[in-house]
């Protein structure tokens, strides 16, 4: 039995919206799992059901061998970090962290020890007497983390905790969260819409779309073998190029170009996926297109082009001299393509 088990979880809101549909998932002890998906896909709802902030329409959640469907949120032994920090504005940093412990009847000395320990770990021990309004965004985030840590919970729940921070701080906090989680070994679920966060943080990633789990896997699995067209497009930046095409006898036809696949497939309505960095630009390339637009990113650049009426992008080293309007040659290796059935959206 896994540490956290979600069995056929369904959430239907009173207005009839189905936010989560028959989702099952197992999370192992100490694992860092990331829920990723576009906004409104149900990832937060799923997390909030684990926390007990939303009731479960159907299905079963068990944590550490105990079914927690009807257990009060305060007794589930979970700690949550919210997007807008959700600190108690009228309490000092110390009291914000101590509040949950006080309510559990823990002695003052022990509370003091725990809070001080967590504060030291997060480097906020100088701020304990301040009110949240006197803290910066990053400091507030640390306090919110501290409030979760002192509880010593079975599971950490992070609901987009980094999206209110600026880019630099976000990267820094991301690393710290990862480090802390490793150090403490507490099972964690992290919700985000940012695929970079998902890729860098997660031991495993759960890609969710429209209340349905599209794929569960390690970052590498998800990136190299996306199960569906949605996952293929959602993970990876710039996003994967998808060409609508017809495959006959293992030969893909896009506009006037042909790609010969390794397998002899026959699909009427197919979709060929190629990651922008798998398009290899070289002078002897088999295909030739015109660069419509060039985006310079420092070490890399992104070229936007089109084959017939299907647009695509490729990512290459900016050492190559190429301007908008120039034509360029490139190769697509058959081993690097992803093929999807356009009707079911599934990988073939």
């Amino acid at each position: 039995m896994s540490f956290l088990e979600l069995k056929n979880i369904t959430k239907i809101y009173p207005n009839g919206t189905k936010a989560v549909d028959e989702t099952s998932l197992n999370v192992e002890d100490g694992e860092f799992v990331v829920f990723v998906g576009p906004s409104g896909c149900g990832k937060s709802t799923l997390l909030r059901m684990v926390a007990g902030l939303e009731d479960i329409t159907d299905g079963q959640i068990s944590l550490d061998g105990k079914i927690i469907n009807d257990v009060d949120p305060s007794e589930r032994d979970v700690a949550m970090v919210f997007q807008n920090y959700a600190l108690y504005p009228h309490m000092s940093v110390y009291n914000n962290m101590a509040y949950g412990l006080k309510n559990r009847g823990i002695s003052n000395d022990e509370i003091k020890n725990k809070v001080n320990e967590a504060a030291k770990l997060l480097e906020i021990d100088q701020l304990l007497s301040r009110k949240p309004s006197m803290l910066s965004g990053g400091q507030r985030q640390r306090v919110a983390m501290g409030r979760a840590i002192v509880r010593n919970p079975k599971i950490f729940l992070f609901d987009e905790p980094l999206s209110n921070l600026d880019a630099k701080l976000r990267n820094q906090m991301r690393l710290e969260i990862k480090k802390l989680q490793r150090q403490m070994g507490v099972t964690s679920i992290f919700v985000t819409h940012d695929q970079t966060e998902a890729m860098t943080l997660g031991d495993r990633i759960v890609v969710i779309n429209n209340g349905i789990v599209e794929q569960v896997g390690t970052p590498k699995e998800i990136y190299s073998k996306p199960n569906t067209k949605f996952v293929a497009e959602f993970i990876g930046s710039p996003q994967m190029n998808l060409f609508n095409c017809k495959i006959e006898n293992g030969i893909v036809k896009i506009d006037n170009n042909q790609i010969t696949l390794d397998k002899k497939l026959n699909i009427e309505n197919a979709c060929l996926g190629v990651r922008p960095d798998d398009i290899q630009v070289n002078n002897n390339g088999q295909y030739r297109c015109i660069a419509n637009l060039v985006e310079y990113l420092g070490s890399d650049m992104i070229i936007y082009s089109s084959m017939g009426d299907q647009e695509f992008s490729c990512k290459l080293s900016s050492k190559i001299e190429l301007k908008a309007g120039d034509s360029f040659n490139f190769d697509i290796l058959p081993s690097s393509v992803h093929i999807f059935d356009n009707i079911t959206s599934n990988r073939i």
Partner: protein
Amino acid sequence: MKKVQFKSTYSQYFFLAPQLLILLIFLYWPIIQTFKDAFTMQDAFGFSSQFAGFDNFLFIFSDPSYLTAFKFTIMYSFIITLITGSIGLLLAVQANKVMHGKNVYKTLLIWPYAIAPAVVGVMANYFFSERYGLLHHLFNNLWGFNWYEDVFDAYIYVIIAGSWKQISANFIFFLAGLQAIQKTVIEASIIDCKSNIRRFWTITFPLLMPTTFFLIIINITYAFFDTFGIIDTTTIGAPGSETKTLVYKAYIDGFKGLDLGSAGAQSIMMMLIVLVITIFQFRYIEGKIHYN
């Protein structure tokens, strides 16, 4: 940014005139008149008046009925503030939880706020009518209710009449205050604290303190001044002068008793009392409030 300067020195007065006139006629003039009255004494027929110094003030301090009105007003505003505040808060907390028909509850609970105090008094009259009054009947069965002879019963009458309408004002401000609290703060506290009651007193209520402070001032001001119409349409101060508020007594002494000097002195005293209470609140209570 460059400011636009008008050359004319008259046009601004022209545009300000309507507002200034209203202030002059309905505010400044009466204030000056009140001060004048407070320090003069008129003869019985109102033909002449002479400077009286502090005689009017000395007179009201020696008047036992003034002390009664003073005590009653303080008690009345304290109880009205307490009752309207706590019932308003209770209703707001409950209405905030309602999922279906939220607006119906809200509208119904806000309605009484739109009713003039005098009309509230007339309505209370029906409820406390000896012949067909619902509340009179209820209380009479419980302990023999008789407001025009029993002081305590009269208190109940004016407190109920005075509170009802003001509960709506408290309700609407508390509801707005509750809705201004971040949802995730409440959710965080749900994970941190099991007891609803404890959570309310440690998180929700402290975050409502700015609203509470505002309402305390509003409620005291209401009980001091706006209950005039209610007293005038319910007990008229009976039994004896036991339920006369300071405003009501000033009105009776000035316009019924035609003792303008005393009424003026009472008005000034009232102003001082409200001033002291407000300063006290800002000095000693406001500092303890957390504003977001």
